[in-house]
């Protein structure tokens, strides 16, 4: 019997233990989450080190000082950090890719994507979506059994980050590799030129950073200790039902 989980069906994952905690995140999710956090942070810092050597964004194939840009970033030109920056960036990129592949492969095989990330039929009803948006705007968080699963906007955010933003980061990054791009020139068609790929890389990195800020804020707002415990030990206390 494969009922879609919902607020009125039996909990699909685990029963509440004696201590009132449920087992929420598998060890694979937890390990890959923190490895991803390390690689993302390193990519961000080293990415900025690379960026500030030429803080102008263009569209198309070429772009250089003297040519009009799409936009300029309000930072001075600092050339000295691209050496270590680039080396560290690719070291972290390898971590991102290898860890990411581990997460993706196991999550598809284990059913994590299907059971935890894809919205349920209930969650896809228009009424539910509207209510979810309203709750988010009011910072009203799910409680009781409803807190066992990710809420709708949360799932959308995670899916966009995993299946859109990170792949775009990777592909636009690879486009800037002269060796890889000469073997796969379709990348230039995908992004409309090398400098466009650079600009896309910057824009999607900024969106990922925005996601990260929202993610942090939500972790704090919902209950920092509880959330951190669940992502470290796996155990989570369902917030008590709202009165």
């Amino acid at each position, binding site marked *: 019997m494969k009922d879609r989980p919902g607020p009125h069906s039996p909990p699909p994952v685990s029963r509440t233990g004696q201590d009132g905690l449920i087992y929420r995140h*598998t*060890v*694979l999710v937890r390990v890959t989450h923190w490895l991803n956090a390390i690689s993302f942070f390193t990519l961000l810092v080293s990415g900025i080190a*690379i*960026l500030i*050597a*030429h803080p*102008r964004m263009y569209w198309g*194939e*070429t*772009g*250089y*000082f*003297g*040519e009009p840009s799409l936009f300029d970033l309000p930072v001075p030109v600092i*050339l000295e950090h*691209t*050496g*270590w920056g*680039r*080396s*560290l960036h*690719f*070291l*972290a*990129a*390898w971590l991102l890719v290898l860890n990411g592949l581990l997460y993706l492969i*196991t999550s598809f*095989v*284990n*059913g994590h994507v299907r059971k935890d990330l894809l919205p349920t039929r209930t969650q896809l009803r228009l009424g539910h979506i509207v209510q979810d948006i309203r709750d988010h705007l009011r910072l009203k968080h799910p409680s009781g059994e409803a807190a066992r699963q990710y809420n709708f906007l949360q799932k959308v955010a995670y899916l966009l980050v995993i299946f859109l933003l990170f792949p775009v980061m990777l592909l636009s990054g690879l486009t*800037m*590799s*002269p*060796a*890889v*791009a*000469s*073997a796969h*020139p379709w990348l*230039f068609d995908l992004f409309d030129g*090398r*400098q466009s790929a*650079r600009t896309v890389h910057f824009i999607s990195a900024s969106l990922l950073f925005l996601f990260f800020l929202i993610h942090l804020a939500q972790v704090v707002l919902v209950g920092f200790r509880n959330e951190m415990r669940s992502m470290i030990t796996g155990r989570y206390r369902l917030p008590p039902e709202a009165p």
Partner: protein
Amino acid sequence: MSRIITRRALLGGATAAGGLLLAGCSESHLPPTYGSLLGVGEALTFASHRLLLPKNTLAREFGREMITKNFPAINTVDPEDEEYQRLKRGGFVDWRLPVTGLVARPTSFSLQDLRSLPARTQITQHNCEQGWSAIAEWTGVPLSRILEHVGALPQTRYIVFHCSDGWWDSLDMLDALHPQTLVTYGMNGRELPVPNGGPARLRVERQLGYKSLKFVKSIQAVASLDKVETGKGAMVVDYGYSWYAGI
């Protein structure tokens, strides 16, 4: 733990993948700077490129309408070296490019000699490590032709370049013999200007711009980079840059 992915299977798979990667990391797949933590990233990238990418793909070549109007000239734009300045004053007529090392017939080429060898013209994109890109038409002799002319010996593993502004760098044989790797003397239909590296600069089209050395003054065929200068393959490595810039 799910029934499908057991801990044992995961560890076994990871070990196998690691073993495969290490097996592929024979000496020819490690950059000369392998050894530091940052070198690990470069080693992974270099090894995966050499193992996974087709060997002789060409960087894109463009039509003349794509040529950049004001191609930037950065870093050294006029080497201070006395010898270079003297040769420049003489219009580089007395300029010679010695090609030595593991070669059967060490030769010193004048600009005229270079121009008499089979030439290639390519309109390609220069991608500076700083982040800017520009397109120019380059004319020169493929390095492979020069190496053929001087009879590079089979034990040659790297080609080393020294420049009039003090820069030095090297290429492995795959990039050295690549059809788009040129010793150029012409740019945009004219003589290569001094600010852009005249009288001769390298073009290495599948790596970042800093490998396309300006003011080339000598070429050497070697079996190992260990005894060349610092032993790290390139001057820029001491400034934190990667020897392999295919990135």
